[in-house]
């Protein structure tokens, strides 16, 4: 991964359905978590669910975040289904 990328991680059902544990996306000024999700959803197929009706939770650097939260180079963006522990 180059220095100008954001690591995107997927967990649980999303990881299985996307068949992807993690990938890297290019950072750009003003980029938000929602932008990354929209870019990935445009791949179609299972990726469309990143902009679908089922809720997707977002964490940036291991803290809960929102679609409008900014992401920059070096960040870890995690996308996952609502949590079900306990």
């Amino acid at each position, binding site marked *: 991964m180059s220095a100008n990328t954001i690591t995107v991680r997927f967990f649980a059902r999303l990881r299985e359905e996307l068949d992807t544990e993690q990938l890297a996306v290019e950072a750009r000024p003003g980029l938000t978590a929602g932008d990354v999700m929209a870019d990935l959803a445009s791949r179609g197929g299972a990726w469309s669910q990143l902009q679908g009706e089922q809720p997707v939770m977002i964490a940036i650097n*291991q803290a809960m975040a929102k679609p409008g939260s900014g992401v920059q180079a070096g960040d870890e963006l995690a996308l*996952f289904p609502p949590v079900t*522990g306990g």
Partner: protein
Amino acid sequence: MISIQTGDFDSAAEYAALRDSGAGTGAIATFTGLVRDSGDTQGVTGLYLEHYPGMTEQVIQGLIDEASSRWDVRQARVIHRVGRLALQDQIVFVGVCSGHRGDAFAACEYIMDALKTSAPFWKKEINQDGEHWVEQKASDRERSQGWD
């Protein structure tokens, strides 16, 4: 004390550690969650639990800190297992000691309720038909929101 682990835990040892928290402790409340035979599906024979290492511990520490700001919490212990679990296995332990029972009950219940909707764990039910990711329950969200 927070532990995310694949192995089982000894509730009696956890209780003993809570009891050993000083002469000001007057109450200990504990909760233990077990693998049940039904959930989103019937005939559940086991569970698989996944988590987000690092974030999980941070979120739980935040819940303990929040509980400590609301109630008298002298010590809190949270253990959550991950990986493959069998029917009736222990999944989660939350133990809190306080000066009085009201604080111990409330802090224990708060940590457990908030953990269910904010700590990054995901449960998969296993039965004879295969495997099924569990969906988050509206009732769990309502219980957690009740503490806001």
